[in-house]
């Protein structure tokens, strides 16, 4: 219990961010038309690829003097994270591109 309180104090800014981000996330999404549910899910999915930053820090400070399983797993995490980010944004863009095309042709 004491440790958790300590944790709260140590990370109080982050915990504030979490609390506010929850409301932000709800607020930003509400009123989205059903048409955009799939692209929105896909776009949000790409944003959850922020874990890539963790991957960069992890591999960035990895010890390269000897080969280790950890390094391989770290590189794997980087590849996975990039797949999530690049693939996610690319797929979202492709979906939205189609809506765009129709609009401009009509007008």
């Amino acid at each position, binding site marked *: 219990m004491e440790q958790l309180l300590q944790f709260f104090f140590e990370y109080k800014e982050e915990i504030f961010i979490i609390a506010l*981000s929850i409301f932000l996330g709800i607020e930003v999404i509400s009123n989205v038309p059903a048409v955009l549910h799939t692209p929105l899910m896909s776009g949000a999915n790409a944003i959850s690829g922020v874990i*890539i930053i963790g991957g960069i820090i992890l591999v960035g400070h990895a010890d390269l003097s000897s080969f280790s399983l950890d390094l391989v797993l770290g590189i794997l995490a980087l590849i996975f994270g990039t797949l999530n980010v690049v693939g996610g944004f690319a797929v979202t863009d492709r979906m939205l591109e189609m809506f765009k095309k129709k*609009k401009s042709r009509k007008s």
Partner: protein
Amino acid sequence: MNIVLGIINGTEYTIGDTLLELSYLVAALLFVVGLKMLSHPESARRGNLWASAGMALAMATTLFLHRDGEGNGISIVNIWIILAAIGVGAAIGWIVARKVKMTAMPQLVSLYNATGGAASALVALLEYPNAVAGDAGSLLVTVLGLIIGAVAFSGSMVAYGKLDGKVGDIMKPFMTYLNLVLMVVTLGLGAYIVVSPNPPTEMTWAIYSLLALSLIYGVMFVMPIGGADMPVVISLLNAFTGIAAAMAGFIYNNQAMILGGILVGAAGMILTILMCKAMNRSLINVIVGSFGGGVSSGDREQGIIKEINLSDASVLMSYSQKIVIIPGYGLAVAQAQHIAQELDELLESKGVDVKYAIHPVAGRMPGHMNVLLAEADVPYEKLVEMDDINPDMPNVDVAIVIGANDVVNPAAYNDPGSPIYGMPIIDAHLAKNIIIMKRGMGKGYAGIENELFFNDKTRMLFGDAKSSLQKLVTEIKTM
């Protein structure tokens, strides 16, 4: 970059550190603005670009400006390794995203969500040995990141398999209890790791067991859920991936990761609930999975099925004033959206008013049908949402149901025993004539009878949606 600006809590900070944090702030703001823009049709595409720009910025500044506890930056060799790994991931991600068919879109989103979950679980796994025994707070976020990331990974893989038709539904009554036990054991082991006084280096067995248990739980969690509910599951797992990334943000004390992750977590949860609402079901109901196996009030008078031939159908359509096409997943599977658009254009040239009625859960994902029809050059204005078209249904001369079933099943209104009772539907039964294109007399995804098929106004046109539509187009052209 290495000029020291000042000292906070005994730690020096440099211009580089400040720029890095500043770039995280900009990235976090771009995520929020991007997501906001993504929820409006006009700005959606730009929103996606803004969010990706934020991600690129955060990645670049981390690579060149991040310093570890001792103040060492990332060395050149490591930078090359990272760039190589990112290059591989980016190339695969980009090519697959560009090449994949639009019908396979839900699978792909699921697959990319799996990779995000895997990355989170791996990062947590690799950071665990650096944690200090007794530091319950940081152990807690590490363990949570590992569990949630691993569940998101294996769960998304199963969801991918189901959407791709590679994995079937396995639902046994005991699985609910088994899953409950599995969850308790997983969380128990996680709690043990958090409170254990042993240093992490002696707990390798425990963390790997936790990973294995979490992966198994992810599989078991998604396995009993019916294929039709996969969109809800993917959205939920998407929220999980966000939360797992935020947990890793704690490990690195990185606000951009925390904000981005929680933003996605909250947005994903809301999206999940919106999807459940569209099907008139609760999230619990979806997860526990009481769908599919349910017995409908079966033994009632069903009436007779009446077929229609192609020429009658073409005459009926050509001389109508108002036609509504109600597409379902069958249309997508048959890749018939392009030919449906051709039929639509042909009828329009004969002065028929053609609209598409889109049920919120038509296709395999909410909005999936809109994407598919947009791909086939159907103008955006012709896609009408359920709530807007229903009041107009009695004025419609022909409702053409293509590959849809449950979303037009009147049992949702008048059969309290039906699993879909209460679900909002498109009121096809109110139209003056109904033509249903179907492969055969199979039941819908929910596995229940559809009394619309036996309606007096209904005519069935059996066969593959694509070839039926093709023949209709040829028939109408020769008229």
